[in-house]
């Protein structure tokens, strides 16, 4: 039924969210949950939409003057919630503050480490000088929320979390926060842009999927995120509920140990250790990739809530490889490849994955094992709680593991995950299997400093192609994110491809 008071701004919105921010300090912890939640109170200079395209926010316009100088112009008349006007110096303050947030478990430093100086031009314009050429500098500012030197000088994380200094330029104002439980917001009447017409927003953190869905169905909640795939169909059919979804920037992939001569958890079919590592052979990796029924996984396990992978980079990344067909199952070819590689009988393998890290992770891993088994690779599955999974993966304890990475920037994806690991330059921090491929490294490193957009994209695609050819990772699928809301009460238009709920995108109907 439609509410008579619809869109009059008098309706509250009650959200059930899968996870909770750990603080209201926008520079304390760089995570999608924190970023999405705080995006309601604070604004970045630039933002990224659901297709990975950058859009102006606090910055009205920007351009690179040369390889190390970027000029930004702020939107006029922006004020913080307490009335303090936004000035270019606040950008300088924000960048100064980032490295000085104590005890951060994951700070925004990587975004600002390259900044050499901020130069104020006038009351709206400023320049950012970088230490080395960085064609992605604007992208680095999409998650960095701007604070005010006047308001926030000397602010500690606790001051934000308590609400005292949770003062931003965003569409909503702080109205209450209990760590791990809920956050309450009210509209910012002085917002420069349009605010969704909610009288009040209460987001409760409900990690259990069943509880979120039940909360929606029982009317306790108006909008939920992280709708489990198995509930999408019946919620879609439900007359009182509407589903909203977006293709995510997440790529779920298998990471084989292709570099060591001997890998753990690889055996012959009888369970005896092998004297060489079959995963080092590109044909074996290829065979494994061909054994996976990606379509089946997406259709049967994810119930259509995703896309079978055709390459490593996810669809919202503008610079991914064009015109790729999804990788089809080809058991015959896979077996042939195995035989060519010297494993006509197959071998034994244990594959690992996290449990409860992303939708369907456990089920998908089993389905992958099903596929592997079908080509003669006798596969065992071991899922681990994330608490131990990532540490063990980092310690190179696995032969092949399933995980995800989310970004709309293929260059970043490659640099973080598959670029040859280098402690000095900090390259490949997530290259847990120590993958190294010169044919990938060369074009990628060149692209990372290239200001010519077209050439850069071409180089990135070269790198992606090199990875594809070598099957350095085995991409599996790209999930879809779903929200469910009360039909006729709320409409949710996801503004980016990272999941999590942000009331800025929720409109009353």
């Amino acid at each position, binding site marked *: 039924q439609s509410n008579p008071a619809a869109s009059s701004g008098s309706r509250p919105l009650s959200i059930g969210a899968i996870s909770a921010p750990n603080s209201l300090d926008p520079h304390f912890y760089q995570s999608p949950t924190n970023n999405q939640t705080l995006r309601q109170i604070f604004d970045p200079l630039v933002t990224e939409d659901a297709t990975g395209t950058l859009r102006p926010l606090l910055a009205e316009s920007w351009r690179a003057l040369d390889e190390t100088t970027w000029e930004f112009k702020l939107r006029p008349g922006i004020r913080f919630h307490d009335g303090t006007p936004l000035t270019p110096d606040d950008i300088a303050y924000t960048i100064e503050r980032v490295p000085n947030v104590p005890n951060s478990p994951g700070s925004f430093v990587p975004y600002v480490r390259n900044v050499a100086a901020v130069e104020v031009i006038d009351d709206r314009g400023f320049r950012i000088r970088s230490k080395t050429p960085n064609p992605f500098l604007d992208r680095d500012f999409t998650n960095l929320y701007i604070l005010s030197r006047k308001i926030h000088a000397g602010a500690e994380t606790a001051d934000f979390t308590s609400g005292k200094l949770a003062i931003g330029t965003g569409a909503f104002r702080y109205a209450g926060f209990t760590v791990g439980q809920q956050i309450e917001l009210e509209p910012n009447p002085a917002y420069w842009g349009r605010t969704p017409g909610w009288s009040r927003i209460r987001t409760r953190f409900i990690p259990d999927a*069943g509880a979120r869905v039940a909360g929606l169905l029982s009317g306790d909640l108006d909008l939920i995120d992280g709708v489990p795939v198995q509930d999408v169909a019946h919620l879609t059919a439900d007359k009182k509920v509407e589903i909203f979804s977006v293709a995510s920037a997440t790529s779920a992939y298998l990471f084989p140990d292709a570099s060591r001569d001997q890998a753990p958890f690889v055996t012959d079919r009888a369970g005896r250790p092998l004297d060489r590592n079959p995963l080092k052979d590109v044909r074996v990796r290829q065979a494994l990739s061909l054994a996976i029924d990606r379509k089946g996984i997406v259709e049967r396990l994810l119930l259509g809530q995703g896309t079978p992978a055709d390459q490593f980079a996810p669809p919202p990344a503008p610079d991914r490889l064009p015109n790729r067909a999804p990788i089809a199952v080809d058991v015959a070819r896979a077996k042939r490849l195995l035989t060519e590689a010297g494993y006509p009988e197959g071998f034994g393998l244990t594959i690992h994955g996290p449990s409860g890290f992303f939708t369907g992770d456990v089920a998908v891993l089993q389905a992958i094992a099903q596929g592997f088994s079908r080509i003669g690779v006798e596969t065992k599955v071991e899922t681990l709680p994330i608490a131990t999974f990532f540490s063990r993966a980092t310690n190179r304890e696995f032969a092949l593991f399933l995980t995800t990475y989310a970004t709309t920037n293929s260059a970043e994806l490659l640099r973080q995950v598959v670029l040859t690991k280098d402690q000095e330059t900090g390259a490949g921090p997530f290259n847990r299997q120590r993958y190294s491929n010169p044919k990938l490294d060369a074009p990628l490193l060149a692209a990372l400093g290239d200001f010519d957009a077209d050439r850069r994209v071409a180089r990135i695609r070269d790198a992606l192609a090199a990875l594809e050819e070598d099957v350095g990772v085995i991409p599996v699928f790209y999930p879809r994110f779903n929200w469910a809301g009360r039909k006729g009460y709320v409409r949710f238009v996801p503004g980016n491809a990272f999941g999590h709920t942000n009331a800025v995108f929720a409109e009353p109907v």
Partner: protein
Amino acid sequence: MSSLTEDGPPSAPLPSLSPLRVLWRDFAASRVALGSLAVFLLLVAAAVLAPWIAPQNPFDLTQLDLLDGRLPPGAEGALVGTYWLGTDDQGRDMLSAILFGLRLSLLVGIGSAVVAGALGTLVGLVAAQSRAQAGGRADTALMRLADLQLSCPSILIALMVIAFLGRGTGNVLLALVLVEWAYYARAARSAALVELKAEYVEAARGLVLPSWWILLRHVLPNCLPSLVVIATTQVARAIALEATLSFLGLGVPVTEPSLGLLIANGRQYVLSGETWISLYPGVALLLLMAAINLAGDRFRDALNPRLGQ
């Protein structure tokens, strides 16, 4: 009840039955107990014979087909004829999965009860003996150890065990034993303390029998009834805890689901109406528990020669 026992012995001696026969006769006197035992044995037999009677080996990934996932009961499948109880998301025949899961749950539940029971009982007896005869230092130490266990959440213990040793059925068993021994230790200790004060124990001391002999031959059998009660609930608790661990992603391997894991997995399909995925394993678990508890109750009574007949 003393009046009852004054009912003297029969003038003509009964044929002497071996103690086990007597136990059985007393046990079998209850029809409910016999029924429960039959159900229990049936379930055990089904579990043991699972590899031969199940239509499918649900632990063998090559026998599963994603395309048969989440079929309702009675559906025809590509790989196995009819899925009488439907399939789960991986295309596992639920009937086979329940049979195999029963195996694991029995192993985990009864295995942990047996091991933890033996260990805990031993600890409890030693503690009681120390309290009754030797000033109780060992008792204090052991009971504080039990406190340590009892105040440490079982889930955390399980996490640590699995962190140390990896996920696996054996490790789940170990975790459950670590979690449970203290219950038995406390129960055995308090029962043994009562028994150690009994006159027949004193009589045994008078016969210059050693303490360990008295503990094992006299005290332990008399503590058994209360331990049997604990054991029946602890089997339930172990299976439930294993299910909870699975729910939290810490239980048995996902490709070899126990009943608890099947229920945990099926839980996510309850709202979407695919209730069979968790319902049938739940019914199997319920049946198992009811059989164990009812048979256990009767067994405890049968263990008591006074209540026999």
